[in-house]
């Protein structure tokens, strides 16, 4: 909690644009303040005014109650003309009295609620009622624009946490990482709630709930993890399992071909006999309907199979084909059991068909658990058929679950592969190109490795003289101290744990088994599950050294501090700015900082949107799972590159390079990128790639899997890049369904918004940005025309793209490239947006007005070094707020 040295700014510093309205009769009030030059205060301007003030004065902190959301007085006319007939003090229809309503939305929650009602009623077109005089479009647009902006402001003022950081439970990611740090194995946490649904960031303490089910789930999860770690069997002997695919696939496909031929013969006989139900039965079909379904037995089934069987290489290996009925040619290794953890390596001897499209020349490696497939990665095959290569792919089989590992070609979601196959059959006569031929595959493992060092630490060697109980007590005490992140457990707690051990031992469990129960209880206790920070005493709000080490480590690693960091915390050295800086650098350089990059970027940029819609393979053949996963990965890899190579932030807005792998290079049509690793690749000046706004991921996130959505894209750019978020979409606005049956370009469809005043107020700002990105189709490919497809590939409409538009501040652009330049000019705003997100994530509370001064300091500090990402982090970590409770 921050201490406020002052509560109020002196009145002369209160800008005239923020008149403070006393409550009472609004009509009278309106006359009173008429002398004031009423100015519309847009949220953005207000934020800058307010924080600018703070920076330029000697006052250390902004007090929340000096910021007010105020509806400009001139809008009183709208209320007076259209609303007060029914909603004044004497009528109060629907118990709504607008006559005495204060124009200061932030007076109290009730006032804000009434204004919110007004906003919703006008947005939905419910008020004024149809039979009453209607507000002119122009008045309505302005009224709603101001009101919705002030509502956003009011909401953040009224909901400000006042700088308080609520007691924080470890979220699901942190919990898993923390157990891994303690036990050396990763627990299965799929039973625990996914904490990302509740708040902008899953680090927000106030929104991380706890329920009785969770208590039991934590106990169960901890028990499983402890059993897997402490009772682990020694690694079994490594072995090599080799699969020669032709042994299964050659006879299998030969059978299918024979069946298809037989089916085709029966089909023609059935047709010859009149095609009736009767004829169908005679030739082995259930009825005529089933008979007729066999019309493709030759073209769709027999021909592709026979072509495969005829290829000489398939007598000693297998080309990767798709059959209409039987799916993929897949290399499936026998399942690895839950108790066979370890490192394995898969080897594939393969060659490629060099004329096939690049997309098909990859191997896809996946892990299958129950029904679920997790894609592990892709490797491009480049060797010719006469000189195959051996490709290695390492895997790590985690303990605790049975899983199988498969190798096949690249796939789409759902049934996209099947639809594409049919299209290919029409084109080339045999279906999806094979791309890769496999001679053999093998899996070797488990590869020898050192015994789990974490376990050796928990179960340290017992001294000969030590009694069993003393040993158990010491194991429990050490483990608890470590699990509690440096906090010593109470003797009473340890006693109780030792009792649990004794009971288990008496029940006949051996020494190690009997320790599992007490240790699982430790991992279910509040001191482990919560980031306990002792209440501050009167003299200091400062975190203790240990608490600071914890906060820093969970911020950048999402796991507990290592020994070095904890030791520096304990003896107080960490509080020294230069040591703190050195440690921050060390943590960022460590590979564990990848967790920060991923979870922060995922939530900040709302990357979940990438998985929200299925992209139909038929419409977006290139955007298969490999391309989609890689598109998302590009974002993390780019941020990681900027961080580790100390490059300025502006590269996220516009850049002369992209960070890609071979899959994405193929997708973007960039040549000369070989190998699956991620690397910087320079792009030519006229390339739309380079910068988030030109990435496939951002384009795809702004679509519904079928068509691009200029609105979603525009909103995303405003919120994430320009830091000028439009008010949230009002709920319950009627859908524009009257146009549902018309075929319109995305641009025309969206322009309809602007005809309705309640939409126009925000969409005038949102839509043009989206139009500027229309050259990217739903899957982020460059296009010059917007093609709207119906069923079965039919083209319903084709519209040339018009990317021109005007930004809110009046600056115009005629192409995507000019739009990107305009966005790139707004670097300061982008830096502020990033800072606000970092503060929320790092401190574990929503960004509020209390944090404005801090945000400005951080931005100013980072700006002096050209906005390097690490500088934002250093500035935050060095701040008093980060080091306070």
């Amino acid at each position, binding site marked *: 909690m921050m201490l406020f040295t002052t509560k109020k700014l002196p009145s002369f510093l209160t800008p005239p644009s923020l008149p403070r309205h006393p409550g009472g009769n609004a009509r009278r009030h309106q006359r009173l303040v008429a002398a004031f030059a009423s100015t519309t205060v847009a949220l953005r301007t207000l934020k800058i005014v307010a924080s600018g003030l703070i920076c330029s004065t000697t006052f250390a902190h902004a007090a929340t109650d000096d910021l007010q959301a105020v509806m400009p007085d001139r809008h009183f006319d709208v209320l007076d003309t259209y609303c007060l007939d029914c909603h004044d003090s004497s009528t109060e229809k629907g118990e709504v009295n607008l006559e005495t309503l204060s124009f200061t939305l932030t007076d109290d929650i009730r006032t804000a609620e009434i204004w919110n009602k007004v906003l919703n009623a006008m947005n939905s077109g419910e008020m004024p009622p149809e039979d009453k005089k209607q507000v002119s479009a122009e008045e309505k647009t302005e009224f709603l624009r101001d009101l919705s902006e002030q509502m956003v402001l009011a909401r953040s003022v009224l909901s400000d946490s006042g700088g308080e950081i609520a007691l924080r439970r470890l979220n699901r990611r942190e919990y898993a990482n923390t157990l891994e740090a303690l036990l050396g194995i990763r627990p299965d946490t799929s039973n625990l709630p996914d904490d990302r649904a509740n708040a902008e960031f899953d680090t927000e303490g106030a929104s991380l709930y706890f329920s009785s089910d969770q208590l039991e789930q934590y106990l169960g999860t901890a028990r499983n993890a402890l059993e897997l770690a402490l009772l682990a069997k020694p690694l079994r002997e490594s072995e090599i399992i080799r699969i020669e695919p032709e042994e299964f696939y050659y006879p299998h496909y030969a059978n299918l071909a024979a069946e298809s031929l037989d089916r085709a013969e029966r089909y023609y006989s059935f047709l010859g006999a009149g095609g009736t139900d009767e004829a169908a039965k005679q030739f082995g079909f259930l009825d005529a309907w089933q008979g007729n379904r066999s019309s493709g037995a030759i073209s769709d089934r027999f021909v592709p199979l026979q072509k495969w069987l005829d290829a000489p290489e398939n007598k000693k290996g297998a080309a990767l084909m798709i059959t209409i009925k039987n799916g993929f040619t897949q290399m499936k290794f026998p399942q690895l059991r839950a108790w066979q953890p370890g490192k394995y390596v898969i080897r594939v001897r393969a060659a490629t068909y060099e004329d096939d499209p690049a997309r098909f020349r990859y191997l896809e490696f996946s892990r299958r658990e129950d029904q679920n497939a997790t894609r592990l990665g892709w490797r491009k095959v480049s060797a010719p058929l006469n000189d195959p290569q051996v490709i290695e792919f390492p895997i790590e089989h985690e303990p605790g679950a049975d899983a199988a590992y498969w190798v096949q070609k690249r796939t789409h979601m759902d049934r996209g592969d099947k639809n594409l196959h049919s299209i290919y059959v029409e084109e080339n006569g045999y279906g999806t190109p094979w791309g890769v031929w496999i001679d053999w595959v093998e899996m070797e493992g488990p590869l020898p490795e050192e015994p789990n060092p974490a376990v050796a630490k928990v179960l340290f060697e017992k001294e000969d003289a030590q009694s069993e109980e003393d040993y158990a007590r010491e194991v429990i005490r050490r483990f608890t101290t470590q699990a509690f992140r440096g906090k010593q457990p109470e003797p009473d707690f340890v006693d109780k744990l030792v009792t649990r051990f004794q009971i288990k031992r008496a029940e006949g469990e051996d020494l190690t088994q009997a320790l599992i129960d007490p240790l699982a209880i430790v991992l279910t206790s509040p001191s482990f599950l919560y980031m306990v920070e002792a*209440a501050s005493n009167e003299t200091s709000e400062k975190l203790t050294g240990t608490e600071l080490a914890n906060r820093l480590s969970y911020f950048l690693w999402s796991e507990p501090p290592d020994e070095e960091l904890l030791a520096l915390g304990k003896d107080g050295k960490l509080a020294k700015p230069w040591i703190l800086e050195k440690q921050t650098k060390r943590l960022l350089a460590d590979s564990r900082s990848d967790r920060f990059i991923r979870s922060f970027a995922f939530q900040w940029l709302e990357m979940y949107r990438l998985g929200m819609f299925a992209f139909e393979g038929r419409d977006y053949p290139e955007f298969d799972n490999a391309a989609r996963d890689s598109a998302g990965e590009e974002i993390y890899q780019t941020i990681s590159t900027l961080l580790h190579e100390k490059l300025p932030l502006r590269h996220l807005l516009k850049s002369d390079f992209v960070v890609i792998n071979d899959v994405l290079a193929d997708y973007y049509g960039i040549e000369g990128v070989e190998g699956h690793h991620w690397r910087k690749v320079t792009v030519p000046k006229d390339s739309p790639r380079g910068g988030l706004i030109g990435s496939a991921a951002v384009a795809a996130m702004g679509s519904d899997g079928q068509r691009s959505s200029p609105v979603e894209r525009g909103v995303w750019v405003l919120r994430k890049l320009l830091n000028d978020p439009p008010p949230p979409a009002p709920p319950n606005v009627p859908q524009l369904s009257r146009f549902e049956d018309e075929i319109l370009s995305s641009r025309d469809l969206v322009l309809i918004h602007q005809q309705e005043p309640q939409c126009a107020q925000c969409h005038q700002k949102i839509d043009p940005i989206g139009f500027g990105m229309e050259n990217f189709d739903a899957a982020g490919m460059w296009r010059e025309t917007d093609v709207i497809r119906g069923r079965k590939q039919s083209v319903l409409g084709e519209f040339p793209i018009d990317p021109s538009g005007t930004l809110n501040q009046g600056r115009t652009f005629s192409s995507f490239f000019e739009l990107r330049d305009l966005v790139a000019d707004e670097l300061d705003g982008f830096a502020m947006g990033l800072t606000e997100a970092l503060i929320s994530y790092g401190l574990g509370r929503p960004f509020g007005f209390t944090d404005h001064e801090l945000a400005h300091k951080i931005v100013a500090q980072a700006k002096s070094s050209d906005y390097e990402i690490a500088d934002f982090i250093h500035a935050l970590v060095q701040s008093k707020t980060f080091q306070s409770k």
Partner: protein
Amino acid sequence: MKNNITRRAILKSSSAAIALPFLESFGFRKFAAAATAPVSPKRMVWLGMGFGVTADKWFPHQDDVGTDYTFPDILKPLEKHRHDLTFLQNLMHKDSQDGHSGSTFWLTGANRYAVPGQSFHNTISVDQLAAEQLGTDTRFASIQLCAKGKGNSGGDGHGPGLSLAWNRQGKPVSGLETPVAAFHRLFSNENTPLAERQARLSEQRSVLDTVMSDAKSVQGKISKSDNEKLDEYFESVREIEVRLSKEEQWLGIEKKQPDPPLTEPSDSLIGYEEMGVMVDLMVAAMQVDATRVFTYRMPVDTMISSLGAGISAHTMSHYSHGERRDVSEMRDFHNAKFLARFIDKLKASKEADGSSLFDQTSLTFGTNLFSVHTLRNCPTLIAGGGAGFKQGQHIVMDDPKTPLCNLWLSQLKGCGVNTDSFGDSTGLINELIT
């Protein structure tokens, strides 16, 4: 102590004295008669369908109200029950803001942002309130069923939560995710000897006792506001303690088996088939009176894929024309089929007093999401005689923002749950009361 008990007893009897005439005046005759004639217990069931419905097809036409309305084509399988069910239009939660959450606030009506500085807040759900009073005499106060969720990326449109139920603290209550799990919870008897089960209960208590000793030491060290947060932990421990005492009460009493007995469901059931088995389990649980309050957070994604759809539920929910709309309508049709079968089974199951289970059940089928992201006019279909409602109607409330909580309150009162308000309720739905 003695004083206390007396006071409580007086309070109890005086509230009953107030409640009776109040209920009678609304014509809740069935309940009012409960004091004299033995009647079968009331049951309450809520079925939540996550993402909304096909907006222009699901409800009867807004102008076509009363008992003689044209039944929606898309819900054809339900038409045979039209006299025993009612469509309600214009119900909503005024505080709902989440366009992707069909279930999170459906049974609570809470305002997610009610607490400053906190991005998520919820309150007790109507089923849990009902369970507090209807669940005292049964082995389980309530049963929550749900389908395995798909996490965050659109999923089934249910939104945050573990089932439809939220406890008194507004924290999620978990559900049984598969028919197999539900079967074992409701009907399997353990073979372990009584002494061993008693030992297990005392062991669970000892675990709680141990974590509490750490919790108390934390309590003394942290600030007041942090302690408010830590209260969630204490509350969870208390809840488990209550559950353990209930288990202890029923220790040694065999779980009743339905007649004919059920066999363990297959563990590969998924989607539409899984929904059918969940219905069988609910009906069987009612027959043996294992519990009287049920919620079911139904599958959407696996349901449509089990019926052959090739798109995800979220993709479907953004239907315009073409395939997405086809799938959306197909989903509505099969949900109607599912519900019709549920009603068939409830009607066929007779109680001791000659009534059917259906006569004693208050059944609700709906979601907080109307269509796409619209949160008003929540799809609402109710059936059964449990609450004593006048069924067979299509009701369009005059106020397009009538609180959905008015329906929840009407149902609670109709089923004899003693409460004067629920959520943001402003009254009862008089059109339902005979």
